[in-house]
């Protein structure tokens, strides 16, 4: 049996499971970002141990208590983290049964476990998990004892159980923003206005006399102000922002997307099969698409609480990776990681590497100035837009040629992109905003992006998922633009799927084949076929039918990372002054379903966010600075603009769970692009699909 990878670093049952306080404690390195993964993981543990969900106490992302599972990213929480818990909980169950068999001096086949109690021949005994807790030795290898239930034995997994954390999120105080330990002070950073800017002058003594200010700290070009009230901190930071002078030699191309498209940096072939040579003269097709820099644009800005005491640093953070953040902070502060405790605490929705880790360092730097007192930092909305890592701008060129029967004989996909995957610790550096401008700086290193073997960064889904004999995918990472970028939900897949799927439609249209059968003719994997047929059926077979003027239908398909969830999306659009998506139909196969409602919810959310990216979103940049400051500069999809959405799930009980959070991003965008093409008669290749973009495409 191959065990899930998290078990190699945390091999013992006791790393994951404890019986305590009449509850089962489950310790996971994964963190809840709003995606419902902790409910799914609790559900998996409850299933294996045959306890109700309410008997699970989940502890997550805590360097003092949980396994190190790196980052909660890449739609891997259930695929890896959940499966580690399945095995650990299974082992705990079998250890408990074995212990009971010993105590009751009977064969284990006569024993059962239900709601934590041991039954013998179906009748209650005096034993339960907690009465035996002291004698069950959980510090044994999971591998030795794990024997998870067969799919047909599962009762709780596969049910749409309610989120364990939801009520608190509506009327309670679950967020890191809400923490208020005794003696709390409020901190606000004063960030350099660009990645390269350095502080020339700021009168710190004057800053310290501002109302409510307790401390003002400067380290290199990082300035933080700490005050006794939140509003005083905000006002003092504003004063500092207005009085600071910076050396900033901004130089950046006026059109960064064009600069990325035209970059001469070296490129790398990441996948090659067959050859693309020697097919001159055959029918060929090409599209080049682009997307601008995007913002994570979480509704709650990045926040953290830090405290220094007796040479230890203690942090509450919404980071996606408490251990990598700890290691990055250890690098910055030149101290062993063992003296830093990092605990995850929920933030607002997180869709990738946003400002969470940066805010944690900001808080730690400010708390250092008021040793012994906790400091809470909450970024301003403008900080969040300007200083959090951006979703990279990209261009993707996809080209194909056909054989004499009209099948695609070869396809080439060439990606130019600002780098993805610059999380804390990657490329050997902290990758934290303030760290790069300290007196002893930790500059942002040259990014290696994310290799295809790890799912790919710019090249994620750049390899077409169709049965095509001759393929080539390449990526060119563009490093020389002065904007800090990292991982945003689905990484390169969003743009690459947009390119490949609009190319597929362009060919089908030219060959007068409907978009569904053209794709099916190029697919051999029955699971791929099933999601396309499922989405098209859900939509009522709209292709090839008469439609009203100004409306269009489109289809998009991809298997996320070419190895995770299969997703097909069909959309209907209306186009007049602007594009309006009215209806979305999706089908998803993410293997075994742990919680169908959670999976539907994630897919609906991915669809809405992808519509918003596709139709509306673009950061504004000028001379190396992000000039977007507020929601008026960065509109996102509103309640009046969301379509009706239907999601059909295909459950594969015998297949591994594949994760679902990012699967819909690319297919949704592609379906919209194809639907707009259907409605207006010309392709629109450059995102977002605003009115101006449509007019530009029509007049080309």
């Amino acid at each position, binding site marked *: 049996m191959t065990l899930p990878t998290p078990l190699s670093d945390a091999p013992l049952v006791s790393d994951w499971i404890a019986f305590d306080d009449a509850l089962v404690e489950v310790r996971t390195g994964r963190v809840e970002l709003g995606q419902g993964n902790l409910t799914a993981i609790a559900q998996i543990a409850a299933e294996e141990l045959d306890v109700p969900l309410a008997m699970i106490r989940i502890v997550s992302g805590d360097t003092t208590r949980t396994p190190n599972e790196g980052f909660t990213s890449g739609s891997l929480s259930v695929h890896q983290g959940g499966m580690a818990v399945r095995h650990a909980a299974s082992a705990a169950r079998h250890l408990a049964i074995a212990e009971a068999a010993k105590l009751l001096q009977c064969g284990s086949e006569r024993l059962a476990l239900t709601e934590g109690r041991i039954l013998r021949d179906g009748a209650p005994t005096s034993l339960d998990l907690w009465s035996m807790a002291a004698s069950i030795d959980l510090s044994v290898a999971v591998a030795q004892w794990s024997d998870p239930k067969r799919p047909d034995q599962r009762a709780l997994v596969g049910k749409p159980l309610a989120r364990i954390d939801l009520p608190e999120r509506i009327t309670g*105080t679950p967020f890191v923003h809400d923490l208020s330990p005794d003696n709390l002070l409020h901190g606000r950073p004063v960030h350099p206005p660009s990645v390269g800017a350095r502080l020339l002058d700021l009168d710190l003594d004057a800053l310290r006399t501002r109302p409510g200010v307790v401390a003002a700290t400067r380290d290199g070009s990082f300035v933080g102000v700490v005050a006794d009230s939140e509003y005083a901190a905000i006002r003092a930071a504003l004063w500092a922002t207005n009085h600071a002078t910076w050396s900033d030699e901004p130089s950046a191309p006026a059109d960064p997307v064009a600069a990325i498209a035209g970059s001469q940096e070296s490129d790398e072939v990441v996948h090659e099969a067959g050859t693309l040579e020697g097919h001159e003269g055959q029918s060929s097709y090409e599209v080049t698409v682009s997307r601008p820099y995007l913002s994570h644009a979480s509704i709650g800005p990045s926040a953290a609480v830090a405290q220094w005491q007796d040479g230890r640093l203690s942090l509450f953070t919404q980071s996606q990776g408490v251990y990598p953040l700890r290691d990055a902070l250890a690098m910055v502060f030149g101290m062993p990681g063992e003296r830093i405790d990092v605990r995850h605490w929920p*933030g607002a*929705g997180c*869709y990738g590497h946003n400002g969470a880790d940066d805010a944690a360092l900001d808080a730690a730097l400010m708390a250092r100035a008021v040793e012994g007192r906790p400091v809470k930092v909450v970024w301003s909305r403008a900080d969040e837009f300007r200083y959090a890592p951006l979703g990279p701008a990209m261009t993707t060129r996809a080209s194909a040629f056909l054989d004499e029967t009209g099948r695609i004989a070869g396809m080439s996909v060439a990606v130019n992109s600002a780098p993805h995957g610059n999380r804390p610790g990657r490329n050997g550096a902290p990758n934290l905003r303030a760290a790069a401008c300290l007196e002893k700086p930790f500059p942002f290193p040259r990014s290696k992006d994310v290799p295809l073997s790890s799912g790919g960064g710019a090249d994620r889904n750049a390899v077409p998922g169709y049965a095509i004999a001759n393929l080539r995918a390449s990526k060119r990472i563009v490093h020389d633009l002065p904007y800090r970028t990292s991982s945003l939900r689905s990484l390169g897949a969003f743009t690459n799927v947009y390119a490949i799927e609009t190319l597929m439609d362009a060919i089908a249209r030219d060959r007068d084949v409907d978009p569904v059968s053209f794709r099916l003719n190029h697919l051999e994997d029955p699971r791929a076929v099933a999601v396309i047929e499922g989405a098209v059926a859900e939509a009522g077979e709209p292709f090839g039918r008469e439609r009203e003027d100004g409306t269009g239908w489109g289809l998009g398909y991809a298997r996320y990372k070419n190895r995770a969830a299969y997703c097909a999306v069909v959309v209907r659009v209306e186009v007049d002054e602007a594009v309006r998506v009215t209806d979305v139909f999706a089908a998803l196969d993410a293997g075994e379903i742990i919680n169908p409602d959670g999976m539907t919810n994630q897919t609906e959310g991915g669809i809405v966010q992808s519509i918003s990216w596709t139709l509306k979103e673009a950061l504004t940049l000028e001379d190396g600075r992000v000039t977007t400051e507020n929601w008026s500069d960065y509109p996102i999809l509103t309640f009046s603009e969301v379509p*009706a959405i239907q999601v059909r799930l295909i459950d594969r009980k015998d297949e591994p769970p594949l994760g679902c959070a990012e699967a819909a991003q690319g297919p949704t965008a592609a379906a919209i692009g194809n639907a707009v093409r259907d409605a207006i008669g010309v392709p629109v290749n450059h995102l977002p699909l605003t009115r101006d973009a449509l007019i530009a495409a029509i007049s080309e």
Partner: protein
Amino acid sequence: MAERSEPVTLTINGRETAVDADGETPFLYVLRNECGLKATRFGCGVGMCGACTVLVDGEATFSCITPLETLAGREVETVEGVSRAGEVHPVVEELIAGQAAQCGYCLPGIVMAAVAHLRSTPSANRASIAAALDGNLCRCGAHVRILNAIERAVQRMQGEETV
């Protein structure tokens, strides 16, 4: 910062409260840091996302741009106040029943905007609810579930009135 003035007296969730803070302080910080009512969220600080929505004399109001001093003598209701005496408000109940959230950070503001709308528009429908929520942003994409839940709350409240 202005001189500290007299405490400002107002009603919060039915309770008369005197707040001793700078009158210019945006009410959101007063609620969260002085009154211990932290379910109202900070989102943008400039009245563009709706996360901080509370009711002032029944009107949905962005507390992040409402100075404390403008609330003297007025009645404020927060998300902690809409579900009282153990009775969960139908909007909150339906949001939970419909699992209408991902991160949930935007929801307190959405609850308050929805409550204001339902009180002023007993015949609220999906389109009017959506329009009433256009000042509230959700980034996780839970919109469809949120609209479904509030529609169900409307139907329930209408049903209860006719009983």
